[in-house]
């Protein structure tokens, strides 16, 4: 029986990827904390994961692309569809909606979630390894 990496690793590989993407978005929010008119953004992790899950269950479900410029659909590698703007808790004079403290909390939380997802992925590999060795 051949081992398919796709089915052996499950959702964790995608989860690690989405976590690292989200880390980038949050880092960008914090980097632009002093930029006038910058709007803080985030992605809906749950929606993305559900999208990935349904994509895996239904096989490769893709939108028909009739022109070269067409996008790949909702589960896009750059998560354009899932990127949303944050609703600010306090208005600011320069139009910036970054709240550094909460962004920092989210960033740290996301880093921990990344570690957890990574741990799962790592365990999957360890399982595969011991299966191959027959220990």
């Amino acid at each position, binding site marked *: 029986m051949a081992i398919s990496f796709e089915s052996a690793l499950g959702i964790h590989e995608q989860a690690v990827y989405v976590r690292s*993407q989200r880390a980038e978005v949050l880092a960008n929010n914090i*980097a*632009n904390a002093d930029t006038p008119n910058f709007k803080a953004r985030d992605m809906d992790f749950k929606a993305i994961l559900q999208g990935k899950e349904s994509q895996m269950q239904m096989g490769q479900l893709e939108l028909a692309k009739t022109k070269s410029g067409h996008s790949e659909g909702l589960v896009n590698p750059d*998560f354009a569809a899932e990127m949303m703007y944050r609703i600010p808790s306090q208005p600011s004079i320069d139009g910036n909606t970054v709240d550094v403290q909460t962004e920092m909390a989210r960033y740290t939380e996301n880093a921990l979630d990344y570690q957890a997802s*990574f741990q799962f*992925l790592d365990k999957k590999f360890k399982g595969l390894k011991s299966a191959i060795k027959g220990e």
Partner: protein
Amino acid sequence: MSLSNIFDIAGSAMSAQTVRLNTTASNMANADSVSSSYGETYRARKAVFELGRQNEMQPGVPLGTQAGQGVEVAGIVESDAPLRQEYNPNHPMANEDGYVFYPNVNVVEEMADMISASRSFQINAEIMNTAKQMTQRALTLGQG
């Protein structure tokens, strides 16, 4: 891997905050530079931030849909606040009417700006550190 983008983003923020800190240092250093004419007097400088240029980070990805672009300094502007003039005929730099001109540097504002810039710098250094840990962890995949 997108984690490496975080280094660019946090790095751009740290360099932008350094520029801001530099302008603050320049303003504070020149807070008392007197001059005898209106045009020659030092004016407070402020760095203007803008969202980093998008095409440099991830070429090929459409505008506005990228995860992160970082920040960059669009330019440095001089403050339009009125200069402080003082009637002091005995001052060696006084003009023929007896006035000396002081820069429009608000020391309290500059101090607040300095603290804000150094805080932001610290936070972005922290972001970079966390990203470093995440990357190091990713490198250990499947080991041991």
